[in-house]
């Protein structure tokens, strides 16, 4: 039997609702994968937990049960109390916990700070290991860019991002042709859930003909302006219909008397949605993409795009508790990178989406202006084969 590899978990907060549990603990107790309960060949050996004073903290229990140590610093958790890097991979999960928010409503999770401390250890000890960073790289595009640059400079594998791009798709499609317009529907708050929706959208459009070209301008609009923008053709009602046709949500009349509703073509949508917002993204190659946050009308994440003239659409499968299977899908990707030393998809995707979100939220607090984004004019190569779980293989 091959030696088991050592994993450090660096996290903000660890209770049963946290990503530390939903993601990190898959390496303690295994997870469902391809119809088997998969036990990774990894042991969590060291941990750092930034906020562990709460009554709900689980890190002490887990450390005791599984025989790992919670260290007082990130460096100590990576060196396991020695003077040299002593783990084979790092799981960085800085989502959840009590942190301040900035004026854009972004929660200031210390991902960049944690990541920098990890890289300091790599530099000092002259050795690097793969790092998985949960969700976006940072609330700040500038910091996100620095993080990717550090990984490239030291040449270690970095995987980052949301679970939406890798969860099951219904149906399991990708878009490889000419995409001129895309629309994503999401729900939840900002800046937690809009990030997920934007990255899901990016994972769909990045494979378009011509490749990723980056984003030249963004604008975030809210309230009645959202519906007006639809009437003005700034986002497509046909694509709204396409995305909603994939929704399994129950609201309004569907809730009161069971009738399925064609929400895309009824007044009910505007009545149901509380505080709509639209994230309008203009890509360099002319692609127009829109994220509509439709709280009150739907409870799922759907997408539609016009590809080679045809409307194609899907739902990203996000089954809730118990088991939140999408988080197991993401850990499958992290484990693949830890094993192979190669990120299954580039961190540049996450970096670009960090920038889109930050600039959209900047637009939100500057009178909803359209903002040019020269810093987001960047390209990257999407993975050769689609990386979502359940992607068709072979003919």
């Amino acid at each position: 039997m091959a030696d088991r590899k050592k994993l450090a978990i660096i996290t903000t907060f660890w209770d049963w609702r946290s990503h530390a549990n939903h993601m990190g603990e898959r390496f303690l107790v295994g997870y469902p994968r391809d119809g088997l309960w998969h036990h990774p060949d990894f042991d969590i050996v060291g941990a750092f937990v930034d906020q562990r004073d709460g009554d709900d903290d689980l890190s002490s229990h887990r450390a005791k049960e599984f025989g790992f140590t919670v260290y007082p610093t990130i460096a100590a958790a990576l060196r396991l109390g020695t003077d040299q890097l002593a783990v084979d991979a790092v799981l960085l999960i800085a989502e959840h916990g009590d942190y301040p928010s900035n004026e854009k409503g972004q929660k200031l999770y210390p991902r960049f700070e944690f990541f920098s401390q990890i890289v300091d250890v790599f530099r000092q000890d002259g050795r690097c290991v793969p790092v998985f960073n949960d969700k976006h790289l940072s609330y700040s595009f500038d910091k996100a860019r620095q993080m990717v640059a550090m990984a490239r400079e030291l040449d270690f594998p970095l995987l980052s991002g949301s679970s939406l791009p890798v969860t099951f798709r219904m149906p399991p499609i990708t878009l490889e042709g000419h995409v001129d317009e895309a629309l994503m529907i999401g729900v939840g708050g900002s800046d937690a859930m809009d990030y997920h929706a934007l990255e899901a959208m990016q994972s769909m459009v990045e494979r378009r003909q011509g490749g990723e070209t980056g984003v030249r301008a963004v604008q975030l609009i809210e309230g009645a302006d959202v519906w007006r923008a639809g009437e003005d053709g700034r986002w497509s009602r046909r694509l709204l219909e396409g995305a909603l046709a994939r929704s399994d949500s129950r609201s309004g009349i569907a809730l009161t008397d069971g009738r399925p509703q064609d929400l895309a073509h009824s007044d009910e949508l505007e009545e149901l949605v509380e505080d709509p917002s639209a994230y309008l993204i203009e890509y360099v190659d002319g692609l127009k993409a829109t994220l509509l946050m439709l709280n009150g009308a739907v409870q799922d994440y759907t997408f539609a795009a016009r590809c080679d003239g045809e409307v194609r659409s899907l739902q990203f499968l996000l089954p809730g508790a118990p088991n939140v299977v999408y988080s197991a899908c993401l850990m499958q990707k992290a484990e693949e990178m830890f094993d192979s030393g190669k990120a299954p998809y580039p961190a540049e995707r996450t970096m670009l989406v960090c920038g889109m979100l930050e600039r959209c939220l900047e637009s939100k607090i500057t009178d909803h202006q359209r903002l040019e984004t020269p810093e987001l004019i960047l390209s990257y190569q999407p993975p050769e084969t689609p990386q979502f779980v359940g992607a068709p293989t072979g003919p």
Partner: protein
Amino acid sequence: MTQTAVHRSPGKRPRVAGLISEYRRYSHGQNIIDRLMGGYGWESQWHYPELDVVSLYVDQFPENDLSREREQRHPDLHIYPTIAEALSLGGSELAVDGVVLIAEHGDYPLNDKGQMLYPRYDFFQQTVDVFRASGRSVPVFCDKHLSYNFDWARQMVDTAQELGFPFMAGSSLPVARRVPSIDLPLGSEAEEIVGIGVGNIDSYDIHALEAMQCLAERRRGGETGVKSVRGLRGDSVWQAMDEGAWDPALFEACLCRSLSLKPADETHRHTYPTRQELPGLVERPPVAYQIQYNDGLKATMFLLPGLAQDITAAVRIKNQPEPFSVLFYLGAGHHMQPNFFNPLSHHIENLICKGETPFPIERTLLTTGTAIAGIDSLHQGEQLINTPHLDISYQVEASTFRRT
């Protein structure tokens, strides 16, 4: 299967009669008829079926009935007091182009075996009486299993064949979306099948059995029929598990396809349940049907309410190290719209407009008989029930679950 041409005037939208036990929010009648009348999300658009539901016979009108509201909402829809009148639109002979028979939900008596006596056979008989009297027949859809009585189920299939009308029945599961979106390769050398479902016998056993059967029938040689069925309940299930009565890898594969596997851990850790934890996670006495097919295939269906909230199946294929396994997608959470009725409604539309049946009616005949044998076995103290009457063979080719 022989199929007849669909009888209707060229260029006209087919007219449909719905025979419904109860039409209230989220009853099968409401779910299916509302989709046929008002459309549903399909592919990348809102789809309005190319047919008109013009008449309803509704057997029971509870306080929360919605059929009368629907009659007001749709000026071309009329509720008739009898099945014959619903089919003849008040005239003297058959006047519709398709019949949708949904006798699921409502207040009907239970027999001593625990079967609810839904009047599917009665509705069907009254329908074919009109067909016979009118000298012509139209396609019929019967929701869920055919009947609680196998002889009646057999008679329904025979009558459809005799009169030559397209007849489709069964659960929504075989045509529902799957996670992942895969089918058992046609001609697989299947050795054993396990399916795990939820709910009670007589209502949910048929769903799990239909899910398993739409995989089983794709095995090498096609369907050959069922030789015997034995039902187990409560501790007998766990005892059989400990005795190795089924392949544990198939049981695990099912639970690993679940989207709602309940962890035993009090701190909500996402663990796979141990053998010791399993009984505590199942909320009511577990049920298993052990099914022996004529060609040697062995299958076990479980109802394990509480352990998970979904329906999964796994197949052991000869010389393949890992089982084939899949989830039949019914939505992820109680807040979801039951859109597994969309593909079913789509096939009903094809049945009525084109005379197409997506799978042989023999599938539903076999699952109807298997469920009844399982219930009989439980009723007779878990006795093995030999099922020579389930010597039913059929072949399938196309894969008809919702892929797109």
